[in-house]
């Protein structure tokens, strides 16, 4: 029995070692630094109390970035989910060349968000990009839409880029989930005269909920931490209009080198995020 006892720790240990290496030291360093006073100019290692956390609570720009990020997540996620679901239904039945289409549709998801952001930045360019040209065809005249500069267009631009890149991800998850739904139950229901909507609501939805939940969790988290696409498209502008949490964090940590403040910032985010995710996971586990 001792052999098994050692074995299960043995095969687990290397993985844990790696995770701790990147997980533990930075976390501890962040913790310590957040109670010191290290800035671009001064390296004060003395205990400074909770001054940075207090400042965080008071920081309007921080809360604004949180609000923006949450709102964006709340808008993008349902869109990606809904579109993904619609597409999954489309591809559920027989479609010639299905495999080819699915492979091609997956492409946006597998390219770097940096490339995606750069591409859309060019697409939205007023002079050199095709989007305004296409809109112009529909409108019948030249349109001047400054997507990355106009306050009412910057977020839509980022939204479009993100939806483009990640709907295929949701699509894939949902396609596999839908394929796994028990066909017999559906047929039985329609024979009983149930409407499409009722079939969906009471048979399909419960069946795909576990997968949907995972997909939403992963995507929701990524949206919350969004950086690459925003950075290449607007750098948080115009002004601070599209400054998400990560963008503001980057400014604080790597432009202004407000190291201790950034540490407090980082810890706050980690704690909140972990809390949210763990409760979500507990909820899912409980339901199972």
């Amino acid at each position: 029995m001792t052999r098994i006892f050692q074995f299960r720790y043995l095969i687990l240990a290397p993985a844990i070692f790696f995770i701790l290496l990147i997980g533990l030291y930075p976390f501890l360093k962040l913790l310590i630094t957040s109670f010191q006073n290290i800035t671009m100019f001064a390296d004060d290692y003395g205990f400074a109390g909770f001054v940075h956390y207090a400042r965080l609570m008071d920081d309007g720009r921080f809360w604004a970035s949180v609000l923006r990020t949450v709102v964006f997540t709340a808008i993008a996620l349902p869109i990606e989910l809904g579109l993904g679901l619609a597409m999954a239904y489309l591809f559920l039945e027989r479609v010639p060349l299905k495999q080819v289409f699915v492979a091609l549709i997956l492409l946006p998801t597998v390219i770097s968000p940096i490339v995606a952001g750069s591409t859309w930045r060019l697409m939205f360019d007023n002079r050199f990009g095709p989007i305004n040209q296409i809109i112009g065809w529909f409108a019948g005249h030249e349109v001047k839409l400054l997507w990355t500069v106009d306050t009412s267009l910057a977020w839509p631009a980022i939204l479009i880029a993100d939806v483009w890149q990640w709907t295929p991800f949701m699509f894939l998850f949902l396609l596999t989930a839908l394929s796994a739904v028990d066909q017999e139950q559906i047929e039985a229901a329609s024979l009983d005269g149930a409407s499409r909507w009722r079939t969906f609501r009471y048979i399909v939805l419960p069946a795909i909920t576990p997968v949907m939940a995972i997909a939403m969790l992963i995507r929701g988290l990524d949206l919350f931490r969004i950086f690459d696409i925003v950075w290449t498209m607007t750098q948080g502008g115009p002004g601070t209009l599209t400054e998400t949490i990560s963008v503001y964090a980057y400014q604080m940590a790597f432009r202004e080198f407000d190291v201790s403040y950034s540490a407090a910032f980082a810890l706050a985010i980690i704690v909140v995020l972990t809390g949210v995710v763990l409760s979500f996971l507990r909820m899912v586990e409980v339901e199972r």
Partner: protein
Amino acid sequence: MSVVGRKNRTGLRFALALACTLLFLFPIYWIAAISVKTPEEIFAYPLVWLPGSFNFNNYLVLFRDGDAWSVFHSLVTAGTSTVIAMVLGTFAAYSLARYKTGGNHLSLWIISQRMVPQISIAFPVFLLFVSLKLIDTYAGLIILYTAFNLPYVIWMMRGYIQDVPIELEQSAMIDGLSPFQVILKVVFPMVRAGLFATAVFTFIFAWNDFLFALILTRSEVVTYPVQVTGYFGSQSTFWGKIGAMSMLGMLPMFFVVATMQKYIVRGMSMGAVKG
């Protein structure tokens, strides 16, 4: 439904699927077109929709100037870290799945590691790597990506392993195989689709990483996303190079998706219900 009706339905679906695909592909087409346009065509107004010729000069320049090495650096770091993460992670997942090591707490902790925003730990990791002399090295990035991907691998593989009927392993053990051999010879083949699916997403994550690569490299192992951002200058935006570099960075992805496609779908449907 009549045969004609059904054919119409399929035809309609085909048309919709085609439209969908083209819509999603359009931006990729655009970047590909940029990469082969001449400078005049890139800056032409009104727009040039179809490049006049296939001008591969941008690609040649990338290879000549050595920029194309960044794709190689990405391959090495992403590939190696994926392999290591898959091996270590699957074994670790087995420990969690079959032995319930650490119970709920450990698995929850492992999963929570994936939730950390990169920007939060970028600077401490930088300091750590400085003291370990890992800045701007393959080893540094590989260790980082491995560590970052392990939680995901463990999480996914645990689900797949739990789906494997335990009787298979038990009978193998009765046959005299050591626990290690059981994992290798019985479990691995059973979760093959899951392995592929997870490996693909792990690779993608490392391949496309920007922030860590930006902070942790200087000139030796610059990966391709960082290389691309270098082309956005204050007095020059090298759209041709951006296009060519983007395409080079996409190529391995195309290849992966094309060959692994059926595994991805199958793998995801296997683990789909358990997660």
